[in-house]
């Protein structure tokens, strides 16, 4: 069988279950491709070839016995995992020196779910340290490169996960999205990425960055592949108190359905200054296609979305400064050998273990939570967050989904924004509002620039509207010939 690495998940799964190909052969094909090109891309932080092949044999065995069958959502399908999602017995670094040798004693719920569904876990993907960044250049190990132009970044923070799918190293991967960390790299690498509704996917075992914003989500080459992975990872988890109790849904059931009559909102503010003109015209072209399919495009106003970045860069660092207090050299990870007492052990461990961006955000978070500044920053941001959320809720009374660009620019060059953190933060200008409101957001490829760089279109929808959003993306894919 040719082009195993290019097959849609549904086709690959069917070939595996019909024994036309073994899971071991599938694993071998992807490992071969990784071997060929990952020394250039650096999508993976940890990958044990022997272990992958052993696990593939185990899955083949289970298929033989009927323990993995057609009912298993991901029978024999490889999935790569962002390195801030814990995997028992496999190193989980969060892209940080402070967890450089950390071997977790438990699996994240999503990892349990993947195994339950017969998936073959490939390895751990590079990311910005503790998911803080928009280019994967903040990894303490090495930057990941964009497979479509290796001089450019793959986006971040889930850059390794996006680049792995775009390189054909794996059909599927998991990322996490706190302010755009799935959608922005999906746009930069020309793949599909979904940030689910807050609570749809368990966060148990996702190393916490901004707990009220974090969400695990899927990457794939198509809306259908993403829907299949979402089917596997969604569902209630008693180990996450914010996990939703909604009944499970089949996200593939409504794909390629008629979208006639769907009301799509666009926010004219997003198409003014600051947006790359080629991205603007590509997104507008996609809107015309949707109109041609019978959708109505309606202008909406999200007045407070102009303040989303400011709000986000108060709330996310505040939550991060609390969450990252656990890295103190006592229970896990790195401990500095250079200390005289407990206090200096804490300080030296954290100073030597964390990178610049992580330290910056811990300090901003500490500042905005400190007495005297709490009301001016954290309380204020909580109020503006409410206004941003109300903006969306009001908009969804008039429209079914909101469409727009995922990113203001195409993928930038390595080193281009590393000296100016504020400029890097603005890469997330269209994506952070989604996390603040807890709604789902998806990036789907909608064209290329004149130099061949990918462009992403972002869809946002009401809470738990993933099925409709994936349908819209699947129709757009067909119409664009992706």
């Amino acid at each position: 069988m040719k082009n195993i690495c290019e097959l849609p998940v549904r086709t690959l799964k069917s070939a595996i279950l019909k024994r036309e190909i073994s899971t071991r052969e599938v694993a071998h094909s992807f490992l071969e491709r990784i071997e060929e090109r990952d020394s250039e891309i650096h999508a993976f932080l940890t990958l044990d070839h022997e272990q992958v092949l052993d696990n593939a044999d185990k899955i083949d065995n289970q298929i033989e016995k009927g323990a993995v069958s057609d009912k298993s959502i991901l029978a024999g399908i490889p999935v790569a995992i962002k390195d801030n999602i814990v995997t028992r017995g496999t190193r989980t670094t969060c892209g940080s020196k402070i967890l450089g040798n950390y071997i977790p004693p438990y699996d994240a719920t999503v990892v349990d779910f993947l195994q339950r569904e017969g998936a073959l876990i490939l390895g751990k993907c590079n990311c910005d340290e503790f998911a803080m960044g928009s280019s994967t250049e903040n990894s303490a190990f090495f930057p990941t490169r964009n497979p479509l132009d290796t001089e450019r970044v793959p986006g971040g923070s889930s850059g390794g996960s996006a680049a792995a799918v775009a390189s054909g190293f794996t059909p599927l991967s998991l990322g996490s999205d706190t302010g755009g960390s799935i959608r922005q790299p999906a746009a930069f690498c020309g793949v599909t990425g979904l940030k689910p509704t807050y609570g749809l996917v368990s966060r148990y075992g996702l190393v916490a960055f901004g707990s009220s914003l974090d969400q695990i989500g899927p990457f794939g080459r198509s809306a259908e592949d993403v829907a299949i992975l979402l089917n596997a990872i969604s569902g209630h988890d008693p180990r996450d108190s914010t996990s939703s109790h909604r009944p499970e849904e089949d996200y593939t059931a409504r794909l390629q359905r008629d979208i006639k009559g769907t009301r799509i909102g666009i926010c004219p503010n997003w198409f003014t200054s600051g947006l790359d003109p080629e991205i603007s015209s590509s997104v507008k072209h996609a809107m015309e296609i949707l109109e041609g399919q019978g959708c109505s495009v309606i202008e909406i106003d999200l007045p407070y979305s102009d303040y989303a970045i400011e709000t986000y860069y108060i709330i996310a660092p505040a939550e991060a400064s609390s969450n990252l207090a656990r890295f103190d050299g006592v229970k896990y990870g790195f401990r500095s050998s250079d200390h005289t007492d407990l206090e200096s052990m804490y300080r030296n461990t954290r100073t030597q273990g964390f990178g610049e961006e992580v330290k910056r955000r811990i300090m901003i978070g500490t500042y905005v939570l400190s007495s005297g500044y709490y009301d001016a920053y954290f309380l204020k941001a909580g109020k503006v967050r409410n206004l941003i959320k109300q903006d969306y809720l009001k908009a969804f009374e008039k429209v079914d989904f909101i469409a727009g660009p995922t990113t203001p620019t195409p993928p930038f060059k390595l080193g281009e924004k590393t000296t100016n953190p504020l400029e890097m933060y603005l890469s997330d200008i269209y994506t952070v509002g989604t996390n603040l409101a807890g709604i789902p957001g998806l990036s789907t490829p909608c064209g290329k620039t004149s130099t061949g760089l990918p462009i992403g279109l972002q869809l946002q929808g009401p809470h738990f509207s993933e099925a409709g959003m994936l349908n819209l993306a699947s129709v757009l894919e067909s119409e664009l010939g992706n």
Partner: protein
Amino acid sequence: MTTLEDVAKIAELSRLDIEPEKLESVAANFSEILEYINRLNQVDTSGVDPVYHATAVFEDVKAEDRQDPPSMLLEEVMDSAPKTKENQFRVPKVIE
């Protein structure tokens, strides 16, 4: 405008050290970010309640959720700690 003393104080609260020669650039960077987020003061938030969570309604923890999760293996937990003794975490001496 944040002073060098402010930044040094915040670093101390964060249990981070800043090398003296870097203090000025860290403070400049810090000020730039704070100046940016200060734009929030343009928003009239009188009468608006803050939200700290993304979910609209907190769902009650249900009875079936009150089960103990499977326990981790003690030796695997202790293996990931930098320093242990008799299955306890070891830290530098805190009591003279």
